[in-house]
């Protein structure tokens, strides 16, 4: 557990992650049981960090919230919560309400579950999760909401359907490209002949989430996020899971599809055919940028900065697919040793054999020191092998670093405040093409 301050945190608190997660599931209305400013704080964060992900159906400052004050903190907030739920059910149309607690109500120990049970007894479709901000970051909030859904909403089914899978590990808002990423991976899995529930994508429905219990496998495209939810799913519904780092580009995606096929015992010919046709299509496009790549010398040294998902995914894409040198990979999460081992293992088997230096650093202003340590600065020699030409792929906080070291810059990881994101995704084959478009567009932008 991180016990240090964090500069300009690259994450929501648990409540923020939980609110965005709940609000991203079709038909779900979050009800905050928090102090009055939590909704505003999350929203004012969201509009500067998530590629301009707006409030949506009932997020932002429309989110129902008990807004507990000093009196409630002293005498308990459950009466206020009861009143709030009662009126929310009258006023706000939701297929499922999820009560999310904040720091204050968690600390005073409001028993939300007995309040929720009263409403369930009156046929209100409602569950709850304890998501006080001090419990962790936005990723933790994501995991807690998924666990609540898995435990209290998804129906138990004894028969499993062999071709049915659930997909998660991409965190709405923390990943500005979450919709595109989920859509890209969904459509690949559909091509393998699978039925896919992915909770948050354009094609998902609450009905499908409710019936997710008969899947044969849970596929988590992250080594770090949603893992406890996967364990809950296994405990409650008996569905096993696999994890695989977010796949971006043909090398990682091919391996990902191979892993899924293996776990589900899918006919190898089917999988190979999908991989071959996707790969062919990918290179049909890459073919047309090859001229510029080679004429303009578009190979770059790179610094990659991002969370556990993006840092690995982008470093690998740059090394294995783009032929770049991701010299320094900065992972902005605070990870335990076990998680660090997973990272090292993954980074050790790049197809290209390229080795990136990994550091763990939450604070944007410290990254340049890490780079200086890794790539010694000029000591005035006439012939100096500089860290150039260079490219920084990180958050918008890395723009300063890029300017300082004379590198180009693209924002991909949170906070994403200098790009607008709607359908775009980087996962899979088509996502790799998107990333090529965006990277090279930066290089030609001044022409």
């Amino acid at each position: 557990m991180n016990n240090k301050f964090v500069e300009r945190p690259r994450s929501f608190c648990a409540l923020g992650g939980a609110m965005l997660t709940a609000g991203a599931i079709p038909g779900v209305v979050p009800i905050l049981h928090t102090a009055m400013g939590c909704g505003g704080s999350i929203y004012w964060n969201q509009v500067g960090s998530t590629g301009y992900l707006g409030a949506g159906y009932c997020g932002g400052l429309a989110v129902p919230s008990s807004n507990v004050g000093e009196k409630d903190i002293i005498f308990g907030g459950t009466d206020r919560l009861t009143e709030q739920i009662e009126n929310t059910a009258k006023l706000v149309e939701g297929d499922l309400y999820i009560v999310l607690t904040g720091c204050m109500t968690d600390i005073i120990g409001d028993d939300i579950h007995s309040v929720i049970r009263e409403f369930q007894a009156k046929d209100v479709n409602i569950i709850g999760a304890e998501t006080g901000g001090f419990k962790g970051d936005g990723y933790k909030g994501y995991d807690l909401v998924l666990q609540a859904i898995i435990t209290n909403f998804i129906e138990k089914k004894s028969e499993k359907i062999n071709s049915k899978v659930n997909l998660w590990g991409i965190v709405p808002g923390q990943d500005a490209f979450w919709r595109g990423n989920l859509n890209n991976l969904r459509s690949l899995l559909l091509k393998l002949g699978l039925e896919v529930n992915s909770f948050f994508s354009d094609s998902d429905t609450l009905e499908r989430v409710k019936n997710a219990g008969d899947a044969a496998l849970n596929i988590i495209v992250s080594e770090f996020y949603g893992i406890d939810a996967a364990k809950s799913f296994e405990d409650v519904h008996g569905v096993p899971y696999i994890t695989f780092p977010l796949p971006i580009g043909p090398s990682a995606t091919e391996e990902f599809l191979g892993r899924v096929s293996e776990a589900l015992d899918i006919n190898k010919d089917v999988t190979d055919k999908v991989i071959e046709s996707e790969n062919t299509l990918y290179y049909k496009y890459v073919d047309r940028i090859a001229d510029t790549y080679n004429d303009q010398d578009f190979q770059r040294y790179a610094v990659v900065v991002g969370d556990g998902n993006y840092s690995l995914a982008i470093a690998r894409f740059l090394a294995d697919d783009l032929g770049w040198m991701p010299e320094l990979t900065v992972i902005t999460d605070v990870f335990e040793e076990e998680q660090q081992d997973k990272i090292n293992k993954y980074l050790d088997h790049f197809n290209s054999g390229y080795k990136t230096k990994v550091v763990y650093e939450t604070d944007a202003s410290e990254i340049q020191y890490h780079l200086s340590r890794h790539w010694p600065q000029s000591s005035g020699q006439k012939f100096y092998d500089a860290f150039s030409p260079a490219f920084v792929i990180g958050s918008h906080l890395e723009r300063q670093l890029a300017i300082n070291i004379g590198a180009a810059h693209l924002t991909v990881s949170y906070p994403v405040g200098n790009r607008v994101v709607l359908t775009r995704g980087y996962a899979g084959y088509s996502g790799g093409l998107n990333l090529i478009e965006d990277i090279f567009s930066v290089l030609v932008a001044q022409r």
Partner: protein
Amino acid sequence: MSYVDEKVAPRREERLGTCVDFGGCACDLKKNFNGGCLKNNDRGFCQGSICQLLPGLSMLNTIPDSVVIVHGSLGCGGSGHSQSAAVRGRQILGGSTNPRGTLWLSTNLNERDVVSGGEAKLEEAIIEADRRYRPASIIVVSSCVPGIIGDDLDGVIAKIQPQVNGVILPVHCEGFKTKVMATAYDAVYHAISRNLLEEEEDEVKVIQDEFEEEAEKIRRSRQVNLMNVSSGTPGDEKELTRLLNALGLEVKIFPCFTHPDDMKYATQAALSISTCPTHDDYFLKHLNEKFGVPYLLRYMPIGIQNTNSWLREVAKFFHLEDVAERIIERETTELELSLMTIRENLKGKKAMLSAGEVRTLATAGWLQELGLEIVAVRPYHYDEFGEPALDQLIDKDSNIQVNVGTVQPYESVNIIERTRPDIYLGHNSDNVWAAKSGVPVLPIYGGPNTYVGYTGAFDFARSINRVLKNPSFNQNLRKNVRQPYFKNWYTDQPYKYIAQGGND
């Protein structure tokens, strides 16, 4: 003993009887407010809102050469991500070629800290902030968690201050402590007043020059404090400075974007001039009591009438009435000419407004002057500082509808469906709900526009005129995007969930 001698500024509920829950006509608002019957009102259905921490951070994040430490959970300072855009803009205007934007640290209080306290972590953050960034000031803002686990912010700071170079400012902004987000202004000014106003001894001149001394005296007799707000734009400051310069006054701007070392100059002015009365009273009264700086605190210079009044008050203080009248004559003549065709277009259009107290009411006043009909105003809170602007509205429309609430868009959309305004001028995070109702929107502050003075009056008019030229975007939203409320909500009274709390 003055408020500033206490560690924490009082809540506005107590200090001013401020109200945040009301719906009805303006006369009832005035009557009940003055009777003290509104401060215990409540809502039975609430939506996520804005606590005092958020405007507090909006002000503090602007202070140059400083680090904000948000003592609380990981998420509490997150609004800094969106505010960075405006701060970067100012840094670029200030000449930076590689602007940093906002800079804050979160003490990231976790489950262990909730049990065992967060003071040690705060100490570490302060020391490291001083070492790493060498700031002029380290602004420690406490959010809810330290307030409830009992961290002694002032104690930690008193202990650590001798070890660090930057001046440490404790700012108490626990969100759960007040329903009035405007308490934030007092909390911030409280910290500035207690820590940054100490006068340094007058410097001794190498060459004693009587003429120079006399010149300095005259200069100071014409030096004014112009108070800004974090929601103000560079254009706003430029416009008001222009007008005050035209009166022959020298302007220093406080507190947003003012260097911590320069805050003390606020004590040397001949006069303090507020641009948003509800924002500044705490500080201006303190400057007056402690340093004898008189102040003006009545008008927000939005629209011609308010700007005229604002300017006349300043001029009267300096006995410059004639100059002011000449400026007013010149500005308004030219402005009226430019407004002629726009006025025609806007006449009879219906408007609804929603934002901070005085800004909302004063802007509504300008729209009335422009010939628009105001279907409702939604100030985020109401206290005595809203009264002059409210009276102006009542003068033109004695039945004007006022809905006091901090955001609460469910009431907003209900009123919109009843009144179908032609334009909505709202606060950021508020506008989108009007947009989904199909109403054209103009943000009521921010961006590249000017909102105050004569330039602002014109900008409002021409921007509304522009927005009305093509309302397709929001009309399409109304057809294609759903609001989250059941249909029957729109047939209910918009103030259904506001409960009268009565007197204490």
